Protein backbone atom coordinates (compact mmCIF):
# COMPACT_ATOMS: atom_id res chain seq x y z
CA UNK A 1 0.00 0.00 0.00
CA UNK A 2 2.91 2.24 0.82
CA UNK A 3 4.25 1.64 -2.71
CA UNK A 4 0.98 2.66 -4.17
CA UNK A 5 0.65 5.84 -2.15
CA UNK A 6 4.09 6.97 -3.24
CA UNK A 7 3.04 6.38 -6.81
CA UNK A 8 -0.06 8.53 -6.52
CA UNK A 9 1.87 11.31 -4.78
CA UNK A 10 4.38 11.29 -7.64
CA UNK A 11 1.53 11.59 -10.12
CA UNK A 12 0.19 14.66 -8.35
CA UNK A 13 3.66 16.24 -8.51
CA UNK A 14 3.62 15.72 -12.29
CA UNK A 15 0.23 17.38 -12.57
CA UNK A 16 0.79 20.35 -10.30
CA UNK A 17 4.23 21.17 -11.68
CA UNK A 18 3.17 21.29 -15.29
CA UNK A 19 1.58 24.57 -16.30
CA UNK A 20 0.06 23.12 -19.46
CA UNK A 21 -1.59 20.31 -17.56
CA UNK A 22 -3.00 22.72 -15.04
CA UNK A 23 -4.41 24.93 -17.77
CA UNK A 24 -6.05 21.99 -19.52
CA UNK A 25 -7.37 20.65 -16.26
CA UNK A 26 -8.77 23.77 -14.75
CA UNK A 27 -8.79 26.52 -17.36
CA UNK A 28 -10.43 24.52 -20.13
CA UNK A 29 -13.58 23.46 -18.30
CA UNK A 30 -14.43 26.96 -17.18
CA UNK A 31 -13.64 28.47 -20.56
CA UNK A 32 -15.55 25.87 -22.54
CA UNK A 33 -18.51 26.07 -20.24
CA UNK A 34 -18.73 29.83 -20.58
CA UNK A 35 -18.19 29.61 -24.34
CA UNK A 36 -20.88 27.03 -24.88
CA UNK A 37 -23.20 28.66 -22.42
CA UNK A 38 -23.02 32.09 -23.98
CA UNK A 39 -22.01 31.69 -27.59
CA UNK A 40 -23.35 28.52 -29.09
CA UNK A 41 -26.92 28.60 -28.05
CA UNK A 42 -30.12 27.63 -29.78
CA UNK A 43 -31.93 30.42 -28.14
CA UNK A 44 -33.13 33.26 -30.29
CA UNK A 45 -33.73 36.70 -28.95
CA UNK A 46 -35.49 39.61 -30.66
CA UNK A 47 -35.81 38.04 -34.07
CA UNK A 48 -37.28 40.53 -36.52
CA UNK A 49 -40.76 39.65 -37.74
CA UNK A 50 -43.46 41.24 -39.86
CA UNK A 51 -47.18 40.96 -39.35
CA UNK A 52 -49.83 41.07 -42.07
CA UNK A 53 -53.18 41.47 -40.42
CA UNK A 54 -56.16 41.22 -42.81
CA UNK A 55 -58.60 41.38 -39.97
CA UNK A 56 -57.42 43.99 -37.48
CA UNK A 57 -59.95 43.04 -34.84
CA UNK A 58 -59.60 42.68 -31.06
CA UNK A 59 -58.33 39.09 -31.25
CA UNK A 60 -55.62 39.66 -33.83
CA UNK A 61 -54.54 42.85 -32.08
CA UNK A 62 -54.20 40.98 -28.81
CA UNK A 63 -52.31 38.13 -30.48
CA UNK A 64 -49.93 40.53 -32.22
CA UNK A 65 -49.37 42.33 -28.97
CA UNK A 66 -48.48 39.12 -27.18
CA UNK A 67 -46.13 37.96 -29.87
CA UNK A 68 -44.31 41.25 -30.07
CA UNK A 69 -44.21 41.58 -26.29
CA UNK A 70 -42.30 38.31 -25.92
CA UNK A 71 -38.57 38.71 -25.84
CA UNK A 72 -38.11 36.40 -28.81
CA UNK A 73 -39.61 38.73 -31.35
CA UNK A 74 -39.30 42.28 -32.45
CA UNK A 75 -41.81 43.79 -34.83
CA UNK A 76 -39.90 45.15 -37.80
CA UNK A 77 -42.72 45.95 -40.17
CA UNK A 78 -46.47 45.93 -40.49
CA UNK A 79 -47.55 44.76 -43.93
CA UNK A 80 -50.65 45.61 -45.88
CA UNK A 81 -50.59 43.27 -48.87
CA UNK A 82 -49.64 39.67 -49.56
CA UNK A 83 -47.26 40.73 -52.27
CA UNK A 84 -45.09 42.57 -49.78
CA UNK A 85 -44.21 39.28 -48.04
CA UNK A 86 -41.65 38.09 -50.54
CA UNK A 87 -40.02 41.51 -50.59
CA UNK A 88 -39.41 41.58 -46.86
CA UNK A 89 -37.96 38.10 -46.91
CA UNK A 90 -35.67 38.99 -49.78
CA UNK A 91 -34.29 41.93 -47.88
CA UNK A 92 -33.22 39.35 -45.31
CA UNK A 93 -33.79 41.16 -42.03
CA UNK A 94 -37.17 39.67 -41.33
CA UNK A 95 -37.05 36.01 -40.27
CA UNK A 96 -40.76 35.36 -39.98
CA UNK A 97 -44.06 36.74 -41.25
CA UNK A 98 -47.36 36.11 -39.51
CA UNK A 99 -50.53 36.42 -41.59
CA UNK A 100 -53.98 36.61 -39.98
CA UNK A 101 -56.89 35.87 -42.31
CA UNK A 102 -59.76 38.33 -42.76
CA UNK A 103 -62.56 38.32 -40.18
CA UNK A 104 -60.37 36.39 -37.79
CA UNK A 105 -62.27 37.09 -34.56
CA UNK A 106 -65.65 36.54 -36.17
CA UNK A 107 -64.72 33.17 -37.63
CA UNK A 108 -63.19 32.08 -34.38
CA UNK A 109 -66.31 32.91 -32.44
CA UNK A 110 -68.76 31.41 -34.92
CA UNK A 111 -67.03 28.30 -36.22
CA UNK A 112 -64.41 27.92 -33.54
CA UNK A 113 -61.79 27.96 -36.23
CA UNK A 114 -59.62 30.67 -37.69
CA UNK A 115 -56.50 30.54 -39.77
CA UNK A 116 -53.17 32.07 -39.16
CA UNK A 117 -50.29 31.51 -41.51
CA UNK A 118 -46.77 31.49 -40.17
CA UNK A 119 -44.05 31.89 -42.77
CA UNK A 120 -40.50 31.16 -41.74
CA UNK A 121 -37.29 31.92 -43.59
CA UNK A 122 -36.11 28.35 -44.01
CA UNK A 123 -32.83 29.34 -45.56
CA UNK A 124 -31.85 29.13 -41.92
CA UNK A 125 -33.80 26.01 -41.12
CA UNK A 126 -32.98 25.72 -37.42
CA UNK A 127 -33.82 29.30 -36.66
CA UNK A 128 -37.00 29.11 -38.70
CA UNK A 129 -38.13 26.00 -36.88
CA UNK A 130 -37.49 27.50 -33.50
CA UNK A 131 -39.27 30.74 -34.38
CA UNK A 132 -42.30 28.91 -35.73
CA UNK A 133 -42.40 26.86 -32.55
CA UNK A 134 -42.25 29.94 -30.39
CA UNK A 135 -45.06 31.57 -32.35
CA UNK A 136 -47.29 28.50 -32.25
CA UNK A 137 -46.67 28.33 -28.55
CA UNK A 138 -47.92 31.84 -28.02
CA UNK A 139 -50.98 31.27 -30.22
CA UNK A 140 -51.82 28.04 -28.47
CA UNK A 141 -51.63 29.48 -25.03
CA UNK A 142 -54.05 32.20 -26.09
CA UNK A 143 -56.53 29.69 -27.49
CA UNK A 144 -56.29 27.69 -24.33
CA UNK A 145 -57.22 30.74 -22.31
CA UNK A 146 -60.23 31.27 -24.56
CA UNK A 147 -61.30 27.67 -24.14
CA UNK A 148 -61.36 27.93 -20.41
CA UNK A 149 -63.39 31.14 -20.56
CA UNK A 150 -66.14 29.97 -22.91
CA UNK A 151 -68.52 27.18 -22.19
CA UNK A 152 -68.12 25.72 -25.67
CA UNK A 153 -67.82 21.94 -25.79
CA UNK A 154 -64.16 21.01 -25.37
CA UNK A 155 -62.35 20.62 -28.62
CA UNK A 156 -59.10 18.82 -29.13
CA UNK A 157 -56.48 21.33 -30.07
CA UNK A 158 -52.93 20.40 -30.99
CA UNK A 159 -51.21 21.83 -28.00
CA UNK A 160 -47.46 21.73 -27.92
CA UNK A 161 -46.03 22.14 -24.50
CA UNK A 162 -42.35 22.53 -23.88
CA UNK A 163 -41.81 20.26 -20.95
CA UNK A 164 -38.79 20.54 -18.62
CA UNK A 165 -37.47 23.58 -20.33
CA UNK A 166 -40.51 25.83 -20.55
CA UNK A 167 -38.50 28.82 -21.70
CA UNK A 168 -36.66 26.59 -24.17
CA UNK A 169 -33.49 28.04 -22.73
CA UNK A 170 -30.60 26.79 -24.83
CA UNK A 171 -28.17 26.61 -21.97
CA UNK A 172 -30.22 23.91 -20.26
CA UNK A 173 -29.37 21.66 -23.14
CA UNK A 174 -25.73 22.62 -23.19
CA UNK A 175 -24.88 21.93 -19.61
CA UNK A 176 -25.31 18.14 -19.86
CA UNK A 177 -23.55 18.11 -23.22
CA UNK A 178 -20.68 20.23 -21.99
CA UNK A 179 -20.18 18.13 -18.88
CA UNK A 180 -20.03 15.00 -21.01
CA UNK A 181 -17.65 16.49 -23.53
CA UNK A 182 -15.31 18.04 -20.99
CA UNK A 183 -15.10 15.03 -18.72
CA UNK A 184 -14.55 12.72 -21.65
CA UNK A 185 -11.96 14.94 -23.25
CA UNK A 186 -10.02 15.83 -20.13
CA UNK A 187 -9.98 12.39 -18.60
CA UNK A 188 -9.14 10.50 -21.78
CA UNK A 189 -6.68 13.14 -22.91
CA UNK A 190 -4.85 13.51 -19.63
CA UNK A 191 -4.47 9.81 -18.92
CA UNK A 192 -3.39 8.94 -22.43
CA UNK A 193 -0.84 11.75 -22.35
CA UNK A 194 0.48 10.95 -18.92
CA UNK A 195 0.92 7.26 -19.72
CA UNK A 196 2.53 7.86 -23.12
CA UNK A 197 4.82 10.42 -21.49
CA UNK A 198 6.24 7.72 -19.23
CA UNK A 199 6.75 5.60 -22.32
CA UNK A 200 8.54 8.41 -24.14
CA UNK A 201 10.77 9.17 -21.17
CA UNK A 202 11.61 5.51 -20.68
CA UNK A 203 10.39 5.58 -17.11
CA UNK A 204 7.60 3.17 -18.00
CA UNK A 205 10.20 0.42 -18.42
CA UNK A 206 11.52 1.12 -14.97
CA UNK A 207 8.05 0.82 -13.57
CA UNK A 208 7.47 -2.44 -15.42
CA UNK A 209 10.75 -3.86 -14.12
CA UNK A 210 9.80 -2.87 -10.58
CA UNK A 211 7.69 -5.09 -8.31
CA UNK A 212 4.64 -2.92 -9.07
CA UNK A 213 1.97 -4.91 -10.83
CA UNK A 214 0.67 -3.69 -14.16
CA UNK A 215 -2.73 -2.87 -12.74
CA UNK A 216 -1.13 -0.94 -9.89
CA UNK A 217 0.74 1.18 -12.39
CA UNK A 218 -2.42 1.88 -14.35
CA UNK A 219 -4.60 2.55 -11.32
CA UNK A 220 -1.89 4.72 -9.81
CA UNK A 221 -1.72 6.75 -12.99
CA UNK A 222 -5.46 7.31 -13.32
CA UNK A 223 -6.49 7.72 -9.71
CA UNK A 224 -5.41 11.37 -9.50
CA UNK A 225 -7.45 12.07 -12.59
CA UNK A 226 -10.56 10.51 -11.09
CA UNK A 227 -10.17 13.00 -8.30
CA UNK A 228 -9.44 15.97 -10.59
CA UNK A 229 -12.15 14.98 -13.07
CA UNK A 230 -14.58 14.93 -10.18
CA UNK A 231 -13.56 18.45 -9.18
CA UNK A 232 -14.17 19.44 -12.80
CA UNK A 233 -17.62 17.93 -12.83
CA UNK A 234 -18.52 19.81 -9.67
CA UNK A 235 -17.12 23.06 -11.11
CA UNK A 236 -19.21 22.69 -14.24
CA UNK A 237 -22.36 21.91 -12.30
CA UNK A 238 -21.79 24.91 -10.04
CA UNK A 239 -21.15 27.17 -13.04
CA UNK A 240 -24.28 25.85 -14.71
CA UNK A 241 -26.28 26.44 -11.60
CA UNK A 242 -25.03 29.83 -10.53
CA UNK A 243 -24.07 31.48 -13.79
CA UNK A 244 -26.71 30.04 -16.09
CA UNK A 245 -29.38 29.15 -13.57
CA UNK A 246 -29.69 25.54 -14.64
CA UNK A 247 -31.50 23.69 -11.88
CA UNK A 248 -30.61 20.29 -10.46
CA UNK A 249 -34.04 18.78 -9.92
CA UNK A 250 -32.95 15.27 -9.02
CA UNK A 251 -30.54 13.81 -6.53
CA UNK A 252 -27.19 15.57 -6.48
CA UNK A 253 -25.54 12.48 -5.04
CA UNK A 254 -26.82 10.28 -7.86
CA UNK A 255 -25.64 12.86 -10.38
CA UNK A 256 -22.17 12.92 -8.84
CA UNK A 257 -21.98 9.13 -8.70
CA UNK A 258 -22.94 8.91 -12.34
CA UNK A 259 -20.28 11.50 -13.11
CA UNK A 260 -17.65 9.42 -11.35
CA UNK A 261 -18.75 6.40 -13.37
CA UNK A 262 -18.45 8.38 -16.58
CA UNK A 263 -15.04 9.69 -15.49
CA UNK A 264 -13.85 6.12 -14.93
CA UNK A 265 -15.15 5.16 -18.36
CA UNK A 266 -13.31 8.06 -19.97
CA UNK A 267 -10.14 7.15 -18.11
CA UNK A 268 -10.32 3.57 -19.33
CA UNK A 269 -10.72 4.92 -22.83
CA UNK A 270 -7.61 7.03 -22.21
CA UNK A 271 -5.76 3.91 -21.07
CA UNK A 272 -6.84 2.12 -24.21
CA UNK A 273 -5.57 4.98 -26.39
CA UNK A 274 -2.23 4.92 -24.57
CA UNK A 275 -1.82 1.21 -25.24
CA UNK A 276 -2.20 1.88 -28.95
CA UNK A 277 0.59 4.41 -29.27
CA UNK A 278 3.91 5.33 -27.71
CA UNK A 279 3.83 8.99 -28.58
CA UNK A 280 2.29 11.79 -26.58
CA UNK A 281 1.45 13.67 -29.73
CA UNK A 282 -0.48 10.85 -31.33
CA UNK A 283 -2.27 10.22 -28.06
CA UNK A 284 -3.24 13.86 -27.95
CA UNK A 285 -4.41 13.90 -31.56
CA UNK A 286 -6.45 10.76 -31.12
CA UNK A 287 -8.04 12.03 -27.94
CA UNK A 288 -8.88 15.40 -29.42
CA UNK A 289 -10.05 14.47 -32.89
CA UNK A 290 -11.43 11.01 -32.35
CA UNK A 291 -13.26 11.93 -29.17
CA UNK A 292 -14.24 15.54 -29.48
CA UNK A 293 -15.96 15.48 -32.86
CA UNK A 294 -18.14 12.43 -32.25
CA UNK A 295 -19.01 13.80 -28.83
CA UNK A 296 -20.16 17.08 -30.29
CA UNK A 297 -21.81 15.75 -33.42
CA UNK A 298 -23.13 12.30 -32.58
CA UNK A 299 -24.05 12.40 -28.93
CA UNK A 300 -27.19 14.45 -29.34
CA UNK A 301 -25.33 17.27 -27.64
CA UNK A 302 -26.13 19.87 -30.30
CA UNK A 303 -27.84 18.06 -33.14
CA UNK A 304 -30.78 15.80 -32.44
CA UNK A 305 -30.00 12.18 -33.21
CA UNK A 306 -33.49 11.62 -34.65
CA UNK A 307 -32.77 13.95 -37.56
CA UNK A 308 -29.71 12.06 -38.75
CA UNK A 309 -29.57 9.50 -41.53
CA UNK A 310 -30.12 5.94 -40.30
CA UNK A 311 -26.48 4.91 -40.62
CA UNK A 312 -25.34 7.80 -38.46
CA UNK A 313 -28.05 7.01 -35.95
CA UNK A 314 -26.64 3.52 -35.54
CA UNK A 315 -23.20 5.06 -35.16
CA UNK A 316 -24.58 7.22 -32.38
CA UNK A 317 -25.29 4.14 -30.31
CA UNK A 318 -21.57 3.53 -29.84
CA UNK A 319 -20.80 7.07 -28.72
CA UNK A 320 -20.59 6.75 -24.93
CA UNK A 321 -21.32 10.40 -24.05
CA UNK A 322 -24.76 9.99 -25.60
CA UNK A 323 -25.80 7.86 -22.64
CA UNK A 324 -24.24 10.10 -20.07
CA UNK A 325 -26.05 13.10 -21.56
CA UNK A 326 -29.35 11.23 -21.25
CA UNK A 327 -28.55 10.44 -17.62
CA UNK A 328 -27.58 14.01 -16.79
CA UNK A 329 -30.65 15.45 -18.52
CA UNK A 330 -32.89 13.04 -16.66
CA UNK A 331 -31.44 13.77 -13.28
CA UNK A 332 -30.82 17.49 -13.67
CA UNK A 333 -33.82 18.64 -15.63
CA UNK A 334 -36.49 16.02 -15.03
CA UNK A 335 -35.50 15.12 -11.50
CA UNK A 336 -35.83 11.41 -12.12
CA UNK A 337 -34.00 8.78 -10.14
CA UNK A 338 -32.11 5.59 -10.83
CA UNK A 339 -35.23 3.79 -12.04
CA UNK A 340 -35.12 5.81 -15.24
CA UNK A 341 -31.41 5.80 -15.92
CA UNK A 342 -30.32 2.29 -14.93
CA UNK A 343 -30.20 1.17 -18.54
CA UNK A 344 -27.85 3.96 -19.57
CA UNK A 345 -25.81 3.39 -16.42
CA UNK A 346 -25.37 -0.26 -17.32
CA UNK A 347 -24.34 0.67 -20.85
CA UNK A 348 -21.63 2.98 -19.51
CA UNK A 349 -20.42 0.25 -17.15
CA UNK A 350 -20.34 -2.03 -20.20
CA UNK A 351 -18.23 0.44 -22.16
CA UNK A 352 -15.82 0.69 -19.22
CA UNK A 353 -15.41 -3.09 -19.09
CA UNK A 354 -14.81 -3.35 -22.82
CA UNK A 355 -12.18 -0.60 -22.80
CA UNK A 356 -10.40 -2.13 -19.82
CA UNK A 357 -10.45 -5.64 -21.27
CA UNK A 358 -9.08 -4.40 -24.57
CA UNK A 359 -6.36 -2.47 -22.75
CA UNK A 360 -5.32 -5.48 -20.70
CA UNK A 361 -5.19 -7.64 -23.81
CA UNK A 362 -3.17 -5.05 -25.67
CA UNK A 363 -0.85 -4.69 -22.69
CA UNK A 364 -0.15 -8.43 -22.61
CA UNK A 365 0.52 -8.63 -26.34
CA UNK A 366 3.00 -5.81 -26.04
CA UNK A 367 4.83 -7.54 -23.23
CA UNK A 368 5.18 -10.86 -25.07
Amino acid at each position, binding site marked *: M*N*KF*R*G*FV*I*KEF*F*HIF*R*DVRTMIILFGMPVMQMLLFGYVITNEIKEAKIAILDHSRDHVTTELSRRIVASSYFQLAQVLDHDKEILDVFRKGDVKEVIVFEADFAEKLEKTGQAKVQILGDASEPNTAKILVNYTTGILMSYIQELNTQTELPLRIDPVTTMLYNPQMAGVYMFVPGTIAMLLMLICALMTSISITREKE*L*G*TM*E*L*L*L*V*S*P*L*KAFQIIVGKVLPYVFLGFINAVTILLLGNFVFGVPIQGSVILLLLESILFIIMSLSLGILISTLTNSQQIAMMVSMVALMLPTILLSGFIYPVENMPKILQYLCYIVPPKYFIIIVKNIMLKGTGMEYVWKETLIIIGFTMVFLLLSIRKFKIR*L*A
Partner: protein
Amino acid sequence: MATQEKVIKVINLVKKFGSFVANDHLTFDVFRGEIFGFLGANGAGKTTAIRILCGLSYPTSGEVTIDGLDIYRQREQIKKRIGYMSQRFSLYDDLTLGENIRFYAGVYGLSREDIRQRTAALVDKLELHAIEKKLIRELPPGWKQKLAFSVATIHQPGIVFLDEPTSGVDPITRRQFWEMIYDKAGEGMTVFVTTHYMDEAEYCGRVSIMSEGKIHALDTPAQLISKYNVRNMDEVFLRIARNIEAV
Protein backbone atom coordinates in the same frame (compact mmCIF):
# COMPACT_ATOMS: atom_id res chain seq x y z
CA MET B 1 34.56 -10.24 -5.86
CA ALA B 2 33.48 -12.46 -8.73
CA THR B 3 32.54 -15.89 -7.45
CA GLN B 4 31.88 -19.18 -9.20
CA GLU B 5 28.20 -19.09 -8.34
CA LYS B 6 26.08 -18.71 -11.46
CA VAL B 7 23.59 -15.96 -10.80
CA ILE B 8 22.29 -15.67 -14.35
CA LYS B 9 21.93 -18.80 -16.46
CA VAL B 10 20.89 -18.52 -20.08
CA ILE B 11 20.52 -21.62 -22.26
CA ASN B 12 19.57 -21.43 -25.93
CA LEU B 13 17.69 -18.18 -25.63
CA VAL B 14 15.85 -17.35 -28.86
CA LYS B 15 13.78 -14.27 -29.53
CA LYS B 16 12.06 -13.77 -32.85
CA PHE B 17 10.07 -10.81 -34.07
CA GLY B 18 8.15 -12.31 -36.96
CA SER B 19 10.82 -13.83 -39.20
CA PHE B 20 13.56 -11.62 -37.76
CA VAL B 21 15.75 -13.41 -35.24
CA ALA B 22 16.96 -10.87 -32.69
CA ASN B 23 18.56 -13.39 -30.33
CA ASP B 24 19.81 -16.58 -31.93
CA HIS B 25 20.44 -19.36 -29.38
CA LEU B 26 22.29 -17.36 -26.76
CA THR B 27 23.96 -19.44 -24.05
CA PHE B 28 25.98 -17.88 -21.26
CA ASP B 29 26.35 -17.61 -17.48
CA VAL B 30 27.04 -14.66 -15.27
CA PHE B 31 28.77 -15.17 -11.89
CA ARG B 32 27.70 -13.48 -8.72
CA GLY B 33 29.62 -10.28 -8.06
CA GLU B 34 31.17 -9.93 -11.49
CA ILE B 35 30.92 -7.08 -13.95
CA PHE B 36 29.67 -8.72 -17.09
CA GLY B 37 30.00 -6.70 -20.30
CA PHE B 38 27.47 -7.42 -22.98
CA LEU B 39 29.07 -5.93 -26.06
CA GLY B 40 27.98 -5.45 -29.62
CA ALA B 41 27.23 -2.88 -32.27
CA ASN B 42 23.88 -1.11 -32.37
CA GLY B 43 21.24 -3.55 -33.49
CA ALA B 44 23.18 -6.64 -32.46
CA GLY B 45 20.36 -7.72 -30.15
CA LYS B 46 21.76 -6.55 -26.80
CA THR B 47 18.74 -4.58 -25.74
CA THR B 48 16.39 -7.41 -26.72
CA ALA B 49 18.34 -9.78 -24.50
CA ILE B 50 18.56 -7.42 -21.54
CA ARG B 51 14.82 -6.76 -21.76
CA ILE B 52 14.16 -10.48 -21.55
CA LEU B 53 16.46 -10.83 -18.55
CA CYS B 54 14.62 -7.98 -16.81
CA GLY B 55 11.21 -9.45 -17.52
CA LEU B 56 10.15 -6.75 -19.96
CA SER B 57 9.51 -9.32 -22.66
CA TYR B 58 9.27 -13.08 -22.98
CA PRO B 59 11.72 -15.18 -25.00
CA THR B 60 10.40 -17.17 -27.94
CA SER B 61 12.21 -20.23 -26.56
CA GLY B 62 15.06 -21.12 -24.25
CA GLU B 63 15.75 -21.31 -20.55
CA VAL B 64 16.61 -18.33 -18.40
CA THR B 65 17.06 -18.27 -14.64
CA ILE B 66 17.93 -15.24 -12.56
CA ASP B 67 19.23 -15.93 -9.06
CA GLY B 68 17.83 -19.44 -9.38
CA LEU B 69 14.38 -18.17 -10.35
CA ASP B 70 12.68 -19.03 -13.60
CA ILE B 71 11.74 -16.01 -15.74
CA TYR B 72 8.53 -17.59 -16.96
CA ARG B 73 7.09 -18.57 -13.63
CA GLN B 74 8.82 -16.52 -10.96
CA ARG B 75 8.86 -13.13 -12.50
CA GLU B 76 7.44 -11.30 -9.49
CA GLN B 77 10.16 -12.64 -7.18
CA ILE B 78 12.83 -11.77 -9.73
CA LYS B 79 11.60 -8.18 -9.91
CA LYS B 80 12.40 -7.61 -6.26
CA ARG B 81 16.00 -8.73 -6.69
CA ILE B 82 17.04 -6.74 -9.71
CA GLY B 83 17.65 -3.13 -10.63
CA TYR B 84 17.45 -1.70 -14.11
CA MET B 85 18.63 1.44 -15.83
CA SER B 86 17.67 1.93 -19.45
CA GLN B 87 19.68 3.61 -22.17
CA ARG B 88 17.37 6.56 -22.04
CA PHE B 89 17.83 8.72 -19.01
CA SER B 90 15.15 7.63 -16.63
CA LEU B 91 14.56 9.83 -13.64
CA TYR B 92 11.50 12.06 -13.56
CA ASP B 93 12.80 15.48 -14.44
CA ASP B 94 9.91 17.33 -12.86
CA LEU B 95 10.67 15.80 -9.48
CA THR B 96 13.58 16.67 -7.22
CA LEU B 97 16.33 14.18 -6.51
CA GLY B 98 14.86 13.49 -3.09
CA GLU B 99 11.42 12.89 -4.55
CA ASN B 100 12.81 10.53 -7.18
CA ILE B 101 14.64 8.54 -4.54
CA ARG B 102 11.60 8.39 -2.29
CA PHE B 103 9.44 7.28 -5.20
CA TYR B 104 11.67 4.47 -6.42
CA ALA B 105 12.55 3.32 -2.93
CA GLY B 106 8.83 3.34 -2.11
CA VAL B 107 8.06 1.27 -5.17
CA TYR B 108 10.51 -1.36 -3.93
CA GLY B 109 8.80 -1.38 -0.58
CA LEU B 110 11.54 0.20 1.52
CA SER B 111 10.40 1.53 4.86
CA ARG B 112 10.36 5.24 5.49
CA GLU B 113 13.28 4.96 7.90
CA ASP B 114 15.32 3.02 5.32
CA ILE B 115 14.50 5.57 2.66
CA ARG B 116 15.61 8.41 4.91
CA GLN B 117 18.87 6.71 5.84
CA ARG B 118 19.79 5.68 2.32
CA THR B 119 18.97 9.09 0.92
CA ALA B 120 21.15 10.73 3.54
CA ALA B 121 23.98 8.28 2.87
CA LEU B 122 23.79 8.90 -0.86
CA VAL B 123 23.65 12.66 -0.46
CA ASP B 124 26.71 12.55 1.82
CA LYS B 125 28.67 10.22 -0.42
CA LEU B 126 28.11 12.12 -3.65
CA GLU B 127 28.07 15.52 -1.90
CA LEU B 128 24.65 16.40 -3.21
CA HIS B 129 23.62 18.76 -0.45
CA ALA B 130 23.39 21.70 -2.78
CA ILE B 131 21.22 19.97 -5.36
CA GLU B 132 19.06 17.69 -3.26
CA LYS B 133 16.09 20.03 -3.47
CA LYS B 134 16.48 20.95 -7.14
CA LEU B 135 14.35 19.52 -9.92
CA ILE B 136 16.26 16.96 -11.95
CA ARG B 137 15.78 18.98 -15.12
CA GLU B 138 17.84 21.81 -13.62
CA LEU B 139 20.88 19.58 -13.12
CA PRO B 140 23.81 19.26 -15.55
CA PRO B 141 23.52 16.16 -17.81
CA GLY B 142 26.57 14.44 -16.34
CA TRP B 143 24.95 14.36 -12.94
CA LYS B 144 21.71 12.88 -14.16
CA GLN B 145 23.32 9.65 -15.34
CA LYS B 146 25.13 9.10 -12.08
CA LEU B 147 21.99 9.84 -10.10
CA ALA B 148 19.93 7.51 -12.28
CA PHE B 149 22.39 4.74 -11.41
CA SER B 150 22.24 5.55 -7.72
CA VAL B 151 18.46 5.53 -7.80
CA ALA B 152 18.32 2.29 -9.81
CA THR B 153 20.37 0.61 -7.07
CA ILE B 154 18.74 2.32 -4.08
CA HIS B 155 17.07 -0.93 -3.01
CA GLN B 156 20.44 -2.76 -3.03
CA PRO B 157 19.47 -5.35 -5.64
CA GLY B 158 21.59 -8.45 -6.06
CA ILE B 159 21.86 -7.84 -9.78
CA VAL B 160 21.69 -4.59 -11.70
CA PHE B 161 21.10 -4.40 -15.45
CA LEU B 162 22.48 -1.35 -17.20
CA ASP B 163 21.45 -0.84 -20.80
CA GLU B 164 23.95 1.49 -22.51
CA PRO B 165 24.24 3.59 -19.38
CA THR B 166 27.03 5.75 -20.75
CA SER B 167 25.83 6.46 -24.27
CA GLY B 168 26.10 10.14 -25.04
CA VAL B 169 28.05 10.94 -21.89
CA ASP B 170 31.37 12.83 -21.80
CA PRO B 171 34.57 10.85 -21.01
CA ILE B 172 35.07 12.30 -17.53
CA THR B 173 31.56 11.43 -16.45
CA ARG B 174 31.94 7.98 -18.00
CA ARG B 175 35.06 7.47 -15.91
CA GLN B 176 33.21 8.54 -12.75
CA PHE B 177 30.29 6.37 -13.71
CA TRP B 178 32.50 3.32 -13.94
CA GLU B 179 33.96 4.12 -10.55
CA MET B 180 30.44 3.93 -9.16
CA ILE B 181 29.93 0.58 -10.90
CA TYR B 182 33.13 -0.73 -9.33
CA ASP B 183 31.94 0.48 -5.97
CA LYS B 184 28.71 -1.48 -6.25
CA ALA B 185 30.47 -4.58 -7.55
CA GLY B 186 32.80 -4.28 -4.57
CA GLU B 187 29.75 -4.54 -2.32
CA GLY B 188 28.89 -7.84 -4.03
CA MET B 189 26.37 -6.61 -6.57
CA THR B 190 26.39 -8.36 -9.94
CA VAL B 191 26.55 -5.83 -12.76
CA PHE B 192 25.28 -6.72 -16.22
CA VAL B 193 26.13 -3.88 -18.57
CA THR B 194 25.61 -3.43 -22.30
CA THR B 195 27.72 -0.99 -24.22
CA HIS B 196 29.00 -0.31 -27.68
CA TYR B 197 32.09 1.54 -26.41
CA MET B 198 34.90 -0.99 -26.78
CA ASP B 199 37.22 0.85 -24.43
CA GLU B 200 34.69 0.27 -21.64
CA ALA B 201 34.97 -3.45 -22.26
CA GLU B 202 38.33 -3.41 -20.53
CA TYR B 203 36.65 -2.34 -17.29
CA CYS B 204 34.57 -5.51 -17.27
CA GLY B 205 35.45 -8.80 -15.61
CA ARG B 206 34.25 -10.81 -18.59
CA VAL B 207 32.70 -9.74 -21.84
CA SER B 208 30.59 -11.33 -24.50
CA ILE B 209 30.68 -9.96 -28.02
CA MET B 210 27.47 -10.11 -29.93
CA SER B 211 26.70 -9.54 -33.56
CA GLU B 212 23.56 -10.21 -35.58
CA GLY B 213 21.87 -11.95 -32.70
CA LYS B 214 24.69 -14.38 -31.91
CA ILE B 215 27.42 -14.40 -29.27
CA HIS B 216 30.76 -14.75 -31.06
CA ALA B 217 33.17 -14.55 -28.16
CA LEU B 218 32.98 -14.74 -24.37
CA ASP B 219 35.96 -14.37 -22.08
CA THR B 220 37.96 -11.94 -19.99
CA PRO B 221 39.24 -8.96 -21.96
CA ALA B 222 42.86 -10.04 -21.37
CA GLN B 223 42.19 -13.52 -22.73
CA LEU B 224 40.42 -12.17 -25.79
CA ILE B 225 43.25 -9.74 -26.53
CA SER B 226 45.83 -12.49 -26.34
CA LYS B 227 43.67 -14.98 -28.22
CA TYR B 228 43.27 -12.65 -31.20
CA ASN B 229 46.82 -11.41 -30.72
CA VAL B 230 45.91 -7.73 -30.81
CA ARG B 231 46.57 -4.68 -28.59
CA ASN B 232 43.12 -3.77 -27.28
CA MET B 233 39.43 -4.63 -27.25
CA ASP B 234 38.70 -2.34 -30.15
CA GLU B 235 40.86 -4.52 -32.36
CA VAL B 236 39.34 -7.69 -30.92
CA PHE B 237 36.01 -6.40 -32.03
CA LEU B 238 37.29 -5.53 -35.50
CA ARG B 239 38.76 -9.03 -35.89
CA ILE B 240 35.51 -10.65 -34.91
CA ALA B 241 33.55 -8.39 -37.26
CA ARG B 242 35.90 -9.33 -40.13
CA ASN B 243 35.62 -13.03 -39.36
CA ILE B 244 31.84 -12.76 -39.58
CA GLU B 245 32.08 -10.99 -42.91
CA ALA B 246 34.50 -13.61 -44.22
CA VAL B 247 31.99 -16.34 -43.34
